[in-house]
């Protein structure tokens, strides 16, 4: 367990985190790399050759299935996280796209099954990161419920490593449902979303619909029967792959007219608003007051601008 002492008040850290803090240090531009699966998110790294690229600590530090929490190094692959939790019949909200836990949090995008798994931002209970000044800073807490102090974990999710270098995190886990089945349907996806109690995902490409049902076997069967009554369904192994690498963020209601907004093929997540497409979403921009808060946040957390230069959370 890396010499970790779980003493309940202020955190203590093993050698890997302390070494990472030394490596990040307090001077010179630095970029944390995960598996580089989303390396260009928020813009290219601004590197004149002086940017040091470092890797966060890896490995499961402590897994408590009966607390539904797992503490891991940020450099741990999501696949390793999934494997560890699956052995205890659990999973997390983090999407596995071949990347790391820290990368998934830094980018902040939710899993395709977000309706069933929950959001990434709600899954992060505690973060420990290396500050621009080279110090180990923590926020949040190890319990599943906590309102002690300001919410640094949520600030870090989606911040692209521009406010601190994630070192170690505690993630909430949940039981894996006993039954999980995808279905292909001919029914209207919006009607399906209204009719079904709690689908884990409903995907739509403008013609066909795919529904992911999870839960107790009898419940899945009952929901499938309800779906079938709205248009014939058939079980399938997996839904189709996204038609392109681009990820749009629309409102659930906006998906009704998605074909007028996005050119070319798309795959829309009904009830959520994420759409995968070939063409990129135009920049969305921030309001002036929100931009001002972003600017101040960056200056306060990274006064010398050394953390992940070039990346902008507003341009994900």
């Amino acid at each position: 367990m890396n010499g970790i002492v779980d003493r309940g008040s202020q955190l203590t850290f093993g050698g890997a985190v302390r070494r990472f803090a030394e490596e990040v240090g307090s001077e010179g531009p630095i970029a944390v790399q995960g598996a580089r699966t989303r390396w260009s998110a928020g813009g290219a790294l601004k590197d004149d050759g002086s940017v040091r690229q470092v890797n966060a600590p890896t490995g499961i530090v402590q897994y408590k299935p009966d607390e539904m929490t797992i503490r891991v190094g940020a450099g741990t692959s999501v696949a390793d996280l999934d494997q560890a939790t699956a052995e205890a019949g659990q999973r997390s909200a983090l999407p596995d796209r071949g990347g790391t836990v820290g990368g998934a949090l830094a980018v902040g995008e939710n899993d395709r099954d977000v309706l069933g798994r929950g959001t990434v931002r709600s899954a992060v209970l505690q973060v420990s990161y290396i500050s621009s000044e080279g110090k180990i800073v923590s926020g949040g807490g190890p319990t599943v419920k906590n309102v002690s102090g300001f919410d640094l974990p949520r600030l870090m999710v989606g911040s692209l490593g521009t406010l601190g270098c994630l070192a170690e995190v505690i993630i909430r886990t949940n039981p894996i449902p006993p039954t999980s089945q995808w279905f292909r349907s001919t029914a209207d996806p919006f009607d399906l979303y209204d009719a079904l109690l709690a689908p884990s995902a409903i995907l739509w490409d403008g013609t066909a619909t795919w529904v992911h049902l999870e839960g107790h076997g009898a419940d899945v069967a009952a929901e499938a029967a309800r779906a079938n009554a709205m248009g014939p369904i058939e079980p399938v192994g997996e839904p189709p792959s996204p038609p392109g690498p681009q990820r749009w963020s629309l409102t659930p209601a906006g998906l009704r007219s998605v074909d007028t907004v996005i050119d070319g093929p798309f795959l829309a997540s009904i009830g959520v608003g994420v759409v995968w497409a070939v063409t990129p979403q135009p920049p969305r921009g921030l309001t002036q007051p929100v931009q001002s808060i972003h600017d101040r946040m960056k200056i306060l957390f990274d006064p010398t601008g050394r953390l992940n230069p070039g990346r902008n959370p507003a341009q994900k």
Partner: protein
Amino acid sequence: MSVLSSINKNIRDRLAGRGATVTAHAVADERLVEDLRSALAPDRVRMDSVGRSLHAKDASVFKGGVAGPTCYPTSTAEVQAIMRISHHHGRAIVPRGAGTGLAGGAIPLGAPVVIAMTKMNEILEVDIDNRVAWVEPGVVNLDLTRYLTPMGFHFAPDPSSQQVCTIGGNVANNSGGPHCLAYGVTNAHVQAMEVVLPDGSVTMLGGLDAEPAGLDLRGVFIGSEGTLGITTKVAVAITKNRPAVKTLLLSFDSVSDAANTVSGIIAAGIVPAALEVMDHKITVAVENYVNAGYPRDAAAVLLAEVDGMEAGIAIDAGRIEEIGLANGATDVRTAKDDEERALLWKGRKTAFGAIAQLAPDYYLHDTVVPRSELANVLVKVYEIADRHDLVVMNVFHAGDGNLHPLLLFDARDEGVMDRVHAAGGEIVQASLDAGGVLSGEHGVGVEKQGYMGKLFSDDDMDHQDRLRKAFDPTCRANPGKVIPIGHSCADIQALRRVPTGVWG
């Protein structure tokens, strides 16, 4: 000096920058009131002693602070005007909902302008397609759920105070409630908010789209206890009502058996909608109060609720019963209909009202411990209360490990507050020692400020302060809360910027 008088003296010192006596007829800056009255209707800015004393405290045990002018805005534009006028006059502001907070978060420090949001209480729109309801912050939590119920939806966070607490207060405190075990606390149920920032600018945080651009400022604003600005409109997520519900009442011969059952249920991979435990004393008090059918002879009861679809919840309810029996449950009863279920919940949610028959005062604590430590920490809680010669009752969100020890006392007893606060401090320490945190749903306010250093390092708190300053560089919004006072210079300045004459 007793611990309580020390805390209260500390509040007063912060109010005045010295240990001044506060008089009721204090006169604040007349121009400030004039400006506020010209921006709002004159009758919606109160400066009389009754109006101000009404807003001097919240539902916590702490003595009140001193409110400056108290405003009752009815629109975002008015909130913005109040913020700008206060800013112009160098005065801090404190937003306020129903005043049900238990950590002193709404206590006005430094004679700030109090902004009471209770008149902004309209449910503006239910947007089924986007699964949100747009509401003003003064909407009462339960009113929203009652409004949504005929449409097949509800607002998931359900604090015990839900009959009176407001959505704005829920946002400020990131409120929970019994059913947050499966559904999550307020942060998971707010999509977007219109806010007035401390500099008077108005903006939307978050959005109805799937993954709004930029930092999750919506997420960090929720639970910030009014220190980052004021919410004027909220898009809350609405949750589909479940077609089937089962509520089980399990009785035990010991609190430890009940706690171990809770751990066992979660360990078995079941996440019920709610898992609530009440010990013997509170169960008897509740039963005397509402006659809900709780057993008077049990050392503890566990209220377990599962919801979802018929077949699945039958399986889960069966397993919960098995786990309960394996952990020594002496009786397992299932509510036979909605009426019985409602009565059981009425008992649980009015538990704090039931205390009145036993003692005139109580101090409700709020800490979280790992579920597996529940039984051990509860033993310590009883030991601590015994040692300080106090009656303690335990009623808590067991599934989340969220303890709510209730210390009963009569404030007229000489020296009792010393014992109450000494016991409270030891309960917090015992929770932290077990790997827990300071607060699960009440927040830090002024109550837990002194304990922040036990959970966080100076560097941790420094970064929390940076987060706050990105929103409020000069700490004008609810100064003197959450982060210990010595860790925020701007806070001290804001509190010292009290106009001459206020202190009488």
